[in-house]
């Protein structure tokens, strides 16, 4: 990955159509402590290997996608709509 992303809505598209926002991290609940907010905004797991990252299909459907991939080999495991992803994560939680 990195050259092409398969958008679940639009099909296979080049990197140029996307803007990349960074790691997928869950936003704390409004009442969370300041430390949780600090970690949410500033601290990153930054693993070497499997990684979930927000890619915004800016020149296509304008959906945020969660791209699940290996950041060393650039292999992509899955591309999911972010809303869908959040719902699944909710269920998992």
């Amino acid at each position, binding site marked *: 990955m990195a*050259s092409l992303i398969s958008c679940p809505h639009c099909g296979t598209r080049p990197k140029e159509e996307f803007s990349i926002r960074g790691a997928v991290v869950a936003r704390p609940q409004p009442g969370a402590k300041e430390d949780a907010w600090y970690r949410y905004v500033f601290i990153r797991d930054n693993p070497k290997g499997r990684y979930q990252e927000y890619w915004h299909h800016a020149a296509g459907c304008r959906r945020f996608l969660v791209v699940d991939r290996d950041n060393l080999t650039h292999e992509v495991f899955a591309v999911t709509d972010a809303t869908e992803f959040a719902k699944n994560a909710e269920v998992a939680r």
Partner: protein
Amino acid sequence: MTSYRLDSGGLVNRSYALTFSFDGKSFKGLDGDTVASALLANDQMLMGRSFKYHRPRGPVTAGSSEPNALVTIGSGARNEPNVRATVAELYAGLTAVSQNRWPSLSFDMGSVNSLLSPLLGAGFYYKTFMWPAKFWEWVYEPVIRRAAGLGKMVMEADPDRYEKSWAHCDLLVVGAGPAGLMAALTAARSGVRVILADEGFRFGGSLLSENLNIGGVSAADYATGLIAELASLPNVTLMPRTTVFGWYDDMVFGAVERVQKHVASPSPDLAVERLWRIVAKRAILASGAEERPLVFGGNDKPGVMTAGAVRTYLNRYSVAVGSKVAVFTNGGSGYRTAADLAARGVEIAAIVDARAASEDVVPAGVRVIRNGAVVATKGRKRIDGLVVERAGFQEEISCDALAMAGGWSPIVHLMCQRGQKPVWSEEKQAFMAPDVGSAFVAAGSAAGTDTVSAALRDGAAKASAFARDLGFAAYEANIPDVEGEYDASFAPLWYVPGAKDKAFVDFQNDVHVSDLGIAQREAFRHIEHTKRYTTAGMATDQGKLGNVNTIGIVAGMRGVSPAEIGTTTFRPFYTPVSFGALAGASRGEHAAPTRTSPLHGWAKKNGATFVEAGLWYRSSWFPKEGEKTWRDSVDREVRNVRENAGLCDVSTLGKIEIFGANAGEFLDRIYSNGFLKLPVGKARYGLMLREDGMVFDDGTTSRLGPNHYVLTTTTAYATEVMTHLEFASQTLWPDLDVCFTSVSDQWAQMSLAGPKARAIMSRIVEDDISDAAFPFLAARTVTLRGGLAARLFRISFSGELAYELAVPAGYGEAVADAIMEAGREDGICAYGVEALNVLRVEKGFVTHSEIDGRATADDLGYGKMMGMNKPDFIGKHLSTRFGLTAADRLQLVGLKPIEADKEFKAGAHLLKENAAPSMASDQGFVSSVCYSPTLGHYIGLAMLKSGRERIGERIIVWDGLRNSEVPAEVCAPVFVDPGNTKLNV
């Protein structure tokens, strides 16, 4: 000493002679020649000089790995340096010039470096040029730089066109030799969508160079047959003159097609080079094998070339590279070369075979020196003899060319560009392609096959496997018999010891065996260190010829296998690619798309000067006759707005239409201030923060219906805000019932500001817009006289009575014209972004000069807009951190010069009076400055440490960069009408 054109044969068109020039001298070549083959046909062996020692050099290959024969082709703005003469296609009128020599190719002053060479060993420059300290910059470096580089650039704008295209296929075949042609055909016959690309101007690869019969016809004719068949198939795209230069993630390949590099005057309707991004499901690398040079003393002299190159010049171009050619070989390629030369009547001086014995067929009457080695070459600008050593005895042999055959290296470059390294094979004595997964494989001699028949079979087999894999019924290709193949096996000989002259591994960069020795001795033993220290493999050919020899030699010095040494990293580009091709058409004015406002025509009519702002062309001011400077115009525009009225194009603001039952709640979480209670028909100024608590953007949002809003952003942040909203709604709060879309392009929006704005607007709008009916911050759909529906907002960025009117874009120009007409009697003027800026600075409104990503709401004086009672909004939670609330933060203030005639500029810093300049004493900076025609002096907005409590203080506006220090008074950041009396009328 001669190389010459033979009377018959070859793949050149003898009925079509081409005149060209080299170093100003005129030559004749034939259609089908390269520059190198044509020069050789004219007995011009000397074609270049090496980089460091300026040694005379001739071509060593007949292909794209050429390190020596680099020339500059073309003149004027079409000048192109570092073209490989060995691949440059000849055309009538071509002009080529040799490089890196002065005053001439045959007499080059730079060659004195050769005499100094003992001082110039690997890494010498790291150890010297340090004394005295200042001399590096003043003396040594300028001298070194003068010697740097090969070709010269003219640095003029390129007159030619470039473009890019995407291509999609099931199978990409790289290389159109026997393996590639057969692979493409097999796949295509199975129904697969195939692209076949080859860097050569003629398909066929080695079939064009080898003297063979395939299925009863010559190899070249056989290739022609395959190509014709491929060309007839609808699912095949043939791409000659196309180098696949890189393999990228997801089976995307970069390729460059030289569309018109072989014509004297390119057609303006076509690109000269076209960049291809090829998306393939599968790919076959059929790029062939590279013949290795042998490493012996004087192996770089003109006349020494690889045996394969000698055969290519002979069989394809019908050029004998000499009249008496010697062969130095460690395998069958040398014998085949001798046989081909002999068959064409060229005298063979001798075959020197490093091996004790072999089964190769020796051409009749040719002397073979077994167990022999070339230890030196004679001659300077072209060899005229060799010294051969055998069993301790030396013998001189006269010759005018030497074919060297050092064995074969599969060309696996592309498969190694994504991190995998090639793998040493003891059996093949070569680095083989790594396993890169099942979608991309090598075939033919790129995969280690030795013969044409094996290449054909391998190509067919790999293609049919892919066809099956992709769900096609595989087609069984008919592989004909090949007659006249030879045994291409070899026994490795990494270098010949005992050389007197230098034995080169990297020809262009002049790296020789003893440099490799220095590197080992000095601890630069890792092959990457060896490379970087000696520069072996770093020249324009990227070590295509030399790297494997370097590795073999280093392995020998260390007494280990080449497997243990390994290769250096393979990187794009397979061969160098022009900036032009990679940039394509998107350059200069077309570097980015342009946006024009619906009021563009109106602005033009009114004489606007335009400025580019975030892709938009915005009208910056509207000069009138007699106005000498932009300031004259801007001052007039500002005064006119404050006194009468002005019309300004604000169409470039981002506009987002928001719907949904939770739209209000959504906005409440997006903005720091409250939006839930905004009444229908009203606009409100809002502040958006980033999650780290800093201000992100601002703008007004209007409620048009219970569940319907329209939000505006700044021009600069329109895209970012849209993305921000999408992020929030899709990932943070997907449960909110809200949807939105950009309507930025739908509306032409114009601001009518000034005391006479209402009078003018009433002539345009049918609705009652009296202060009572349409008060400050009213926002409603209205009807223009004549019936057009429009949106009217009573918002002001100037402090004046003002309206923003939005009409469908196509009517924008007409409505603006109508307003100008309606306002004529009231003295309306058009005003641009410069005047807009002055008006807002006078009122202390912030823009992204102040919202610079480091400012909090409170810094900007908007502390009250932090709805801390709301449970949540973006930026709330981190806005209370210590550093964001500290007392010494920079806060927005106004500045007035103490002496009214003094000017200061944005970008100046602030210092306490009498303080010595330093970062520690720095008090802040000036963010925006303008001349206020209203007040008659300069004013500024500034971010000042603890600014708000320092109103009234005298401060120095320090601009060391522009040599100015102006005392100023800190004041509130509102200069005009602080009570807003002009707004609410």
